[in-house]
């Protein structure tokens, strides 16, 4: 087959936005006049999704179609079970539904960890994690009874909502449906446009300028220097370059991902959908808990609501732990360990998870200590900045682990 497909990966370069914004114009005009052009919107989304998964990415395209059929079956079978009269609402059926729903993602994570060349087919597709998160959330809320009916069309649009398909932010079904079912008033929509434009340009600044400087301009130079000096030094191969790498990578990670998230939110706002923000100045966090309320927020809230809380309630009901402190510590470890595994089955992602769990437990005990000794411990401008400084460095160190650079430095692979 020698057919030339145009393949466009979302937000990958500035030209992409030109195509995207031109395609958005009818929708924007529609919303300005109080009409949500649902059919046009569906065609628009399908075309741009098609452009992600066509050409050389066609195997991913097949995967996403199979995946959607599979998830739809699970969700709607479970919904039927839960909404039929006098539903027994058995826990094991709920667990089964969740396990089945995350099965494809788990398989992808395991298969991509296999040595290169041992898996003879293309695994997963761009954004499988984020669709799975949305899906699991719907199953959980169905179990709670918070979701009583699901409109298949809206559900498909929710899962495949184009601006957020590749890497979030992770929206919630009920919130999405509320936006989607109405067209905003003209005043509100103009405010949306105002934010959309602002986020778009902020995203350009973040991803294409700052992210580029940190990630494309400086990072390779620092990597090279750190490897050369490290190899010359021997031992643990540490040098000041590793520290430079840590800060540079942290900045790159933030500006690249925050920039991407701003694009996703901006395009959503153009479409009159208030996709939640993902970042809220994470580097001024005063402690680790604060950090997780500001960094990749939709993901951490998802983990909080659907893993941490669920597990805590479950453990309290079953009285698994005597002390509340112990309970919360175990829950944190569970949360961050799962998050680590989700990032990928390599040692540094798992260590990253454990490191954050440890940091948050230490932070908790410090806060308890502080509460007890309120009078002895000073609290002023200086201590506030000290807290920010410490948190920043703890976080940057976690990103150094996360980057896999240490693995490259020590073992030669990443």
């Amino acid at each position, binding site marked *: 087959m020698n057919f030339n497909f145009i*393949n466009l990966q979302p937000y990958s370069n500035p030209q992409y936005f030109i195509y995207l914004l031109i395609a958005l114009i009818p929708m924007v005009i529609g919303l300005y006049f109080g009409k949500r052009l649902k059919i046009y919107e569906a065609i628009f989304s399908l075309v741009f999704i098609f452009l992600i998964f066509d050409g050389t990415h066609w195997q991913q395209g097949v995967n996403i179609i199979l995946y959607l059929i599979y998830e739809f079956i699970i969700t709607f079978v479970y919904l039927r079970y839960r909404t039929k009269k006098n539903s027994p609402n058995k826990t094991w059926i709920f667990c089964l539904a969740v396990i089945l729903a995350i099965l494809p993602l788990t398989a992808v994570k395991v298969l991509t960890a296999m040595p290169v060349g041992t898996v003879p087919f293309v695994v997963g597709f761009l954004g499988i994690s984020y669709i799975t998160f949305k899906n699991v959330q719907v199953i959980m809320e169905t179990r709670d009874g918070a979701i009583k009916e699901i409109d298949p069309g809206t559900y498909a649009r929710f899962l495949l909502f184009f601006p957020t398909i590749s890497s979030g932010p992770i929206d919630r079904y009920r919130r999405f449906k509320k936006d989607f079912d109405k067209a905003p008033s*003209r005043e509100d929509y*103009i405010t949306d*446009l*105002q934010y959309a*434009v602002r986020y778009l340009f902020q995203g350009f600044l973040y991803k294409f300028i700052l992210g580029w400087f940190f990630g494309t*301009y400086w990072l390779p130079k620092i990597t090279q220097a750190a490897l*050369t000096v490290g190899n*010359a030094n021997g031992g643990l191969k540490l040098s000041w370059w590793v520290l430079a790498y840590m800060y540079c990578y942290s900045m790159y990670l933030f500006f690249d991902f925050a920039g991407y998230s701003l694009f996703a939110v901006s395009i959503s706002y153009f479409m009159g959908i208030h996709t939640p923000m993902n970042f809220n100045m994470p580097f001024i966090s005063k402690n680790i808990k604060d950090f997780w309320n500001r960094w990749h927020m939709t993901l951490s809230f998802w983990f909080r609501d659907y893993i941490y809380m669920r597990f805590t309630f479950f453990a309290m009901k079953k009285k698994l732990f005597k002390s509340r402190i112990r309970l919360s510590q175990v829950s944190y470890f569970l949360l961050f360990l799962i998050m680590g595994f989700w990032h990928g089955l390599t040692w540094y992602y798992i260590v990253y998870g454990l490191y954050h769990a440890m940091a948050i437990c230490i932070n908790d005990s410090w806060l308890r200590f502080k509460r007890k000794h309120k009078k002895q411990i000073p609290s002023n401008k200086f201590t506030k900045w000290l807290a920010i400084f410490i948190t920043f460095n703890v976080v940057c160190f976690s990103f150094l682990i996360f980057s896999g650079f240490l693995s490259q430095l020590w073992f030669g692979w990443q």
Partner: protein
Amino acid sequence: MSNKRRLWQIFGPVICAFILLLVVFLFPWERTFSKTSIFQAANSQTTTVFKGVKMKQEAYDDGYVPFYGSSELSRMDPLHPSVIADKYDRNYRPFLLGGPGSQSLSQFVGMQGTSKQLKDKKAVVIISPQWFTKEGQDPQAFDLYYSPLQTAMFLLNAKDNVADRYAAKRIASMPTVKNGIIKSCLKKVAAGKKLSGWDRFVLQNRMRMLANEDNFFSSFQMRDRVDKIHQKEKLLPDTYSEAALHKVADEQAEMHTNSNNLGIDNTFYRTRLPKKVLKKLKGSQRHFNYVKSPEYADFQLMLNQFAKQHTNVLFIIPPINAKWAKYTGLSQKMYQESVAKMEKQLTSQGFENIADLSKDGGKKYFMEDTIHLGWNGWVAVDNAVKPFMSQPNRRYTYDIDNYYYSEKWQNKTDVKPLNLSNKDSLKKK
């Protein structure tokens, strides 16, 4: 506030930004570079300089001579051509073009922007037989050196002939060249079709944008080796003599290769050839073959470009470190066969300035490491470069033969070695 006014406040700045952007992209900006930044560019081997046009153009107008090559150019010991030229204030300065993996096809694309500047002038090419592998141009390396700007220039000048069709086909086959106006025009040229007026219009605007990008940014992230060159110059004797250069070469080389008995630079040996790697490499190159390769046809593109420019070219064919070749099992017989084939291709078309160093890999301190010239090797290069540069510039004409694009030539073996010293017998054989 009225809705209309709010809309203006939101989109007004956006519209202004777009207009400004178009102006900045499409306005024919002019700029000149300072002498120091040209000197820095000439020695930086940075890919943006390689891919760009403006700095090279200015440099060639100002006494710089392109040294097309690859990774050996970065072996900056005191005998490196750039150091010698600067120290003895020669009538030329080398402009180093290439790095690891910059094979003939990348070089050919990189030559497109300076054909006017090199008309009837000089150039030096250091050929690496390592380019001439079964696959030829490494697509990943091509990605590093690919210049859309100069490809657009090539397309706007392309004719419907064997050379341009072949070049277009080769460039289009590289995975780096993605969909877009350049790819579609390459395909047209390769198929012998004419570009439409619209194609040319879009290409011209694309070229203008890329040229501006080159103007603004190519001096932006250069590797700075100026201090390094000045430091190395201090090691050279103040008055030039070949014997004195050899003396410096021997002293420096002895000091820098004392960690191993392969004659390899200590740093290279330590960082690139740790025990594990070294062990793996033993006997690993027994099956290397540089005789059959699409590179011969890509190389012909370079020659054709020189012929079009009537450029006087000096070709340097370096050897392999003999001890290293023995260790890895690389066949010297095969190496000489490939050299003979290159020389045949050159001489039969009238390229007669060849410094064949390919048999000198066993000479003391001739190589800096495994396959890269250094110390005494650079002195040998200078012995060829010096007289070459003292010749006056004039128009050279060549007899280009399209046979060298054919697969028959690419796969030809058993090319008889030539006696380079007998110049009369070289042509038309």
